[in-house]
């Protein structure tokens, strides 16, 4: 073989290797000629649509799972959480009466909500209250609808049942103020009416479609930040609690007679259940298993820890001892204060909000209550009214657009949200929300109290009060160690 022939052979081999490699690699170059047929495009489109639907279904399944779990967690806050927390704080002759108040709300508000409450809170209506289009839950879809104003990724029925749990706990919180002295019948009528005439309008203004204060409503007159109910739940219940205990007067013998909690153990368990349930309350308010839910979860936890610390420090200086009741009361104050802020602020802000709430609420309970001498028996106002107001204000200070870009410019870029972003005028919106919540609570509660007082009388007789609500109202006893 000649030298020349050998060179040709080598050249051929060198050329052949890459072409063999190319032959085994997948053909990524477009087909050189034949344009795609209509059938091929249609098939691709179909596959794309199927993919989109599958993705949406997967997100809906994930979000719905979290939201149903959250709804159950929020119910856990009322029963057994709040029932135990309040039940332990009263004297032992009133424990069943107190627990029954929470339980009655679980039943009565549910029925009202199904019939008319949801419609009044979340129907279209106007800027102040919903309408009647969802009476008996008519037209509340069971399937997720991306166009839905409230819940694009979950069924509106899930949203409805989740919101119901908020409507249950809110009037139940008021029971702390009139503990040990209201008739069961009066309580049932008063709080049922309250949930329709105070809670529903406030929920509509803050969260409802077209609501006056709704920050996700682009036409809201005063977009006020309230992620999970600082105004709707805590200011309304706390301020109504104050009005109720002022209207009803003190318990017989207050403050001379000893009325200390009969079981700190029950209260302790109740407060810890509240803490756990509150993750559903705040992180659930993201309405999906999103990173915003993570943010709210973390903020909730952080603020609770620092608030317990704040209350304990205050008490340690004030009385010389850090009590268990102080620690758990502080924790609840922190949960209250972070509620409006939980989906708007950064974790370090949550630490600050909690600490301030712990100091402020303990000051309200230790100093302000004894200064004015009102008998807010279990401190519903001192914790929920005061904590809710402080939380709503601090939300305006610490809301950060990196966590929740509420305001956007025309191009969709986030604009500053709270004071920390430089948007201090948000404080005016916050103050409007707080003012409206205080106003509707004072007026609504006062009117309802006068009405129910005329109708059945609010207060149990003196004999019944000293005998205790368990025996006088329910004919049974919480504790019977003799049998």
């Amino acid at each position, binding site marked *: 073989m000649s030298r020349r022939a050998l060179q040709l052979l080598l050249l051929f081999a060198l050329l052949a290797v890459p072409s063999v490699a190319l032959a085994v690699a997948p053909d990524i170059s477009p087909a050189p000629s034949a344009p795609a047929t209509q059938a091929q495009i249609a098939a691709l489109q179909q596959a794309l649509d199927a993919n989109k639907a599958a993705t949406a279904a997967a997100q809906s399944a994930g979000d719905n799972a979290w939201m149903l779990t959250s709804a159950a967690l929020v119910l856990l806050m009322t029963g057994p959480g709040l029932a135990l927390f309040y039940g332990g704080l009263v004297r032992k002759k009133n424990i069943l009466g107190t627990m029954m108040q929470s339980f009655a709300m679980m039943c009565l508000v549910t029925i009202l909500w199904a019939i008319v409450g949801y419609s009044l809170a979340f129907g279209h209506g106007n800027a102040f209250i919903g309408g009647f289009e969802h009476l008996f839950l008519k037209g509340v879809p069971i399937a997720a609808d991306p166009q839905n104003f409230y819940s694009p990724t979950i069924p509106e029925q899930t949203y409805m049942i989740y919101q119901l749990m908020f409507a249950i706990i809110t009037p139940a919180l008021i029971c702390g103020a009139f503990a040990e002295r209201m008739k069961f019948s009066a309580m049932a009528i008063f709080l049922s009416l309250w949930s329709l005439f105070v809670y529903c309008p406030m929920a509509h203004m803050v969260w409802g479609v077209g609501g006056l204060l709704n920050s996700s409503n682009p036409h809201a007159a005063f977009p006020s930040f309230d992620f999970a109910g600082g105004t709707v739940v805590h200011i309304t219940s706390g301020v109504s609690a104050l009005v109720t205990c002022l209207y009803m007067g003190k318990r017989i013998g207050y*403050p001379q007679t*000893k009325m*200390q*909690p009969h079981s700190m153990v029950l209260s302790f368990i109740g407060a810890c259940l509240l803490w756990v349930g509150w993750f559903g309350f705040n992180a659930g308010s993201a309405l999906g298993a999103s990173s915003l839910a993570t943010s709210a979860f973390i903020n909730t936890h952080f603020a609770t820890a620092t608030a317990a610390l704040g209350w304990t420090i205050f*008490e340690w200086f*004030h*009385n010389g*001892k850090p*009590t268990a*009741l*102080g620690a758990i*009361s502080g924790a609840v104050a922190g949960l209250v204060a972070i509620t409006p802020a939980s989906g708007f602020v950064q974790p370090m802000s949550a630490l600050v909000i909690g600490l301030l709430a712990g100091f402020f609420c*303990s000051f309200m*309970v*230790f*100093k302000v209550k*004894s200064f004015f001498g009102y008998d807010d028996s279990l*401190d519903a106002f001192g914790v929920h009214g005061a904590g809710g107001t402080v939380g709503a204000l601090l939300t305006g200070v610490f809301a950060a657009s990196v966590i929740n870009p509420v305001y956007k410019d025309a191009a969709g870029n986030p604009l500053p949200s709270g004071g920390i972003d430089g948007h201090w005028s948000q404080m005016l919106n916050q103050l409007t929300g707080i003012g409206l919540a205080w106003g509707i609570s004072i007026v609504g509660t006062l009117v309802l109290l006068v009405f129910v007082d005329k109708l059945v009388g609010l207060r149990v007789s003196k004999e019944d009060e000293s005998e205790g609500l368990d025996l006088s109202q329910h004919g049974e006893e919480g504790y019977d160690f003799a049998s």
Partner: protein
Amino acid sequence: MIKIEAILQPSKLDAVKDALLEAGIEGMTILEARGHGRQKGHTEFYRGREYTVDLLPKVKIELVVKDEQKEKTLQAIISTARTGRIGDGKIFISKIDDAIRIRNDERGETAL
């Protein structure tokens, strides 16, 4: 027959009970009680409010013994219940007219 009523710190109950059994006392009645003597209770705080708790938990032992068992019984109680601090309790002694065993009508010391 002598009735001995001893009011004690609850934490001393077990020791006193054992000492009484060792001293040959067979029957006793124990009551949970609350009260105070010169020891005036303590202070509790609930949400900043101060509560003075003046009635403290105590236990009361009641036993009826034969006259000759009296000193032995008292010594058993005193030596085990005493801490030397305020609040150790008190013992009251009284005479008993008669005793009846309900099961079989036995009377007097044989009924003890």
